[in-house]
């Protein structure tokens, strides 16, 4: 409390409340309420809707896995991929999923470095979403090479042929980038989970739960000598993850940018891909969190303010993406390159025209513009509608970049359309099932909100907090410190 011990300014009534910041946890909930409500999601019996949802998503996931098995046992020919469309839905899905993961790391790392306390309500589930999205992403490059059992060639392992990977290839960079990203995300996520697992351990009612949570909580006891190292580790993991998350989608974009294909061979790709990834990822965070918030009654923790802020990030990154789209057209025109100009004309008026009009123009460029209006950012139905548009739009965008670039390159004699097969379609829907199943399991078995972190967003967590009653009794001491 460094307020000077003078008589407080006579701010009363409405004026005083408008000076204070909006609380991050509504209705002045205390620590115990937060523990009860968040642990309750894990400890109470699964609600009926959870079983219904899980049955559906798990069935879809199972069928997706069957499609993968069919594709691996029969061959890549079960997909619609052809020459020239050697990359199609598979790589579209890969880029789509890996991009979704980026929002989780942005929330957990970048917003942490920027001291955005509102991240504490959403970071745990967003990080979980990152992991599940990367799992879905990792499936596609793995199986699209055809002979999955040779995937170990991706790693620089000594072998009896004496063959090594080409370390100057963006595809090898990608292997390192994605696997590093996944591993670091797991470490970051688990580090954050340790204190919360200790909470569940101390609340466990059965011996087996106590034992399991006890093992994974590593004997955490909330000691400040431990918190000291823990906070430094958390800060450094955030510091390491920040450049990492920017690098991952940059490296993914190198897969395209280092080729000579019109629409791929551009220097704008790394920032364009990263902005698009965060854009699509935030939409997916809200897609998952809005229903979870309603179902588990977390309205006091995930407040309209949080949704508002996420909507603003969607608007910001959506505007980056819009700028990048327009700049691509400008450069195609300004370069005077015939093939480049044709490729962009073909994007808008070619055989895949509606992908551009619906996906890129309507979903990605126009729909987020609703978030200029406060009413739209505060209305969960509008927010959900825009998020769904963005989810779809970002998938379309990747398809337009990949197949849109490949299907008509330099020579008209080598042009060709791409038509997905049922295996293509169901493998993609299957990964949606895997993703949602994993998320449903996550909310049932692990605390979906970081309890130890969200508690620090409550005013009482401040070492210099003075309660309103204390202020009245000890006046004049200054104003209540708000956060």
């Amino acid at each position, binding site marked *: 409390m460094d307020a000077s011990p003078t008589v407080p300014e006579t701010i009363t009534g409405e004026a005083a409340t408008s000076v204070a910041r909006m609380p991050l946890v509504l209705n002045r909930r205390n*620590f*115990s309420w937060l*523990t009860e409500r968040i642990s309750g999601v894990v400890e109470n019996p699964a609600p009926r809707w959870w079983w219904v949802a899980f049955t559906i998503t798990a069935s879809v996931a199972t069928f997706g896995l069957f499609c993968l098995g069919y594709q691996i046992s029969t061959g890549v020919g079960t997909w619609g991929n052809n020459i020239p469309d050697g990359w199609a839905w598979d790589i579209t899905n890969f880029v789509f999923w890996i991009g979704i993961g980026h929002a989780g790391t942005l929330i957990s790392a970048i917003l942490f470095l920027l001291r955005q306390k509102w991240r504490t309500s959403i970071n745990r589930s967003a990080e979980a979403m990152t992991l599940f999205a990367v799992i879905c992403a990792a499936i596609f490059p793995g199986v699209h090479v055809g002979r999955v059992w040779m995937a170990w060639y991706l790693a*620089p392992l000594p072998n009896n042929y*004496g*063959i*090594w*990977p*080409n*370390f*100057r*290839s963006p595809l090898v*960079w990608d292997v*390192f*980038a994605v696997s*590093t990203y996944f*591993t670091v995300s797991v*470490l*970051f996520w*688990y*580090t954050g989970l340790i*204190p919360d697992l*200790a*909470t569940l*351990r*101390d*609340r466990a009612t059965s011996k087996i739960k106590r034992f399991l949570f006890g093992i994974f909580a*590593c*004997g955490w*006891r*909330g*000691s*400040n*000598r*431990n*918190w*000291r*190292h823990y*906070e*430094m*580790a958390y800060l*450094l*993991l955030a510091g*390491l*993850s920040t*450049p990492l998350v920017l*690098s991952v989608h940059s*490296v993914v974009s*190198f897969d395209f940018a280092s080729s000579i294909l019109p629409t791929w061979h551009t220097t704008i790709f790394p920032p364009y891909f990263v902005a698009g990834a965060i854009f699509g990822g935030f939409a997916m965070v809200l897609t998952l969190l809005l229903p979870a918030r309603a179902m588990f009654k977390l309205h006091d923790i995930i407040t309209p303010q949080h949704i508002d802020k996420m909507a603003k990030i969607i608007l910001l990154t959506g505007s980056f993406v819009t700028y990048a789209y327009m700049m691509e057209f400008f450069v195609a025109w300004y370069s005077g390159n015939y093939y480049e100009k044709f490729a962009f004309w073909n994007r808008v008026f070619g055989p895949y025209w509606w992908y551009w009009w619906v996906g890129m123009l309507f979903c990605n460029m126009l729909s987020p513009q609703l978030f200029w209006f406060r009413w739209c950012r505060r209305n969960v139905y509008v927010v959900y509608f825009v998020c769904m548009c963005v989810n779809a739009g970002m998938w379309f965008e990747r398809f337009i970049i990949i197949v849109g670039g490949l299907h008509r390159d330099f020579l008209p004699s080598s042009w060709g359309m791409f038509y997905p097969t049922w295996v293509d379609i169901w493998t993609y829907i299957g990964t949606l099932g895997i993703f949602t199943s994993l998320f449903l399991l996550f909310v049932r078995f692990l605390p979906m909100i970081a*309890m*130890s972190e969200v*508690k*620090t967003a409550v005013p*009482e*967590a*401040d*070492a*210099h*907090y*003075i309660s309103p009653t204390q202020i009245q009794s000890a006046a004049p001491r200054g104003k209540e410190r708000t956060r």
Partner: protein
Amino acid sequence: MRTPAGHKVYAMAAEYPSAPALYEAAKHVRDAGFRRWDVYSPFPIHGMDEAMGLGKSWLSGWVLFGGVSGLLTAALVEFGPSSFLYPLDVHGKPTNFFTVPAFFPIMFELTVLFGAFAAFFAMLTMNGLPRWYHPMFNWERFMRVTNDGFFLAIEARDPRFTETGVRELLEKSGGQHITIVHED
């Protein structure tokens, strides 16, 4: 030191009603010159390190070590095969040390990877975790530490520990439910 019942004493501990109360109490204990003591809270309290007289955590040193070893590992893994064991001629591009930009992404990734592993494992080892057992868990009130409890414990092995002195200090600093915590 043992209790009349024959238990070995680990510490004398007290509970505090709030984070600010714990923070103030920590300053008292620090100023009284104790060395072997700790505070326990459900979340990290900002400023507590200073209130306890603890400096910066040097976990960062391990992360630097991890990052540097990652960078060197990547350099070795890349240039070993590419320059010596299996030089690949792709587009006639050179494979020597002067083409670092093409080798840099993997160096960056492994720097981050090894740094993150170092941060995680250094956090566990510097905290003496994982551990199966800790005397503080013998106190049933301590179960609240992961919920909404704030505790302070001064260990019996501290040279300044005397039962009456510590009890008085804890009482004076606003501690409640002051108790002896057994080692076993």
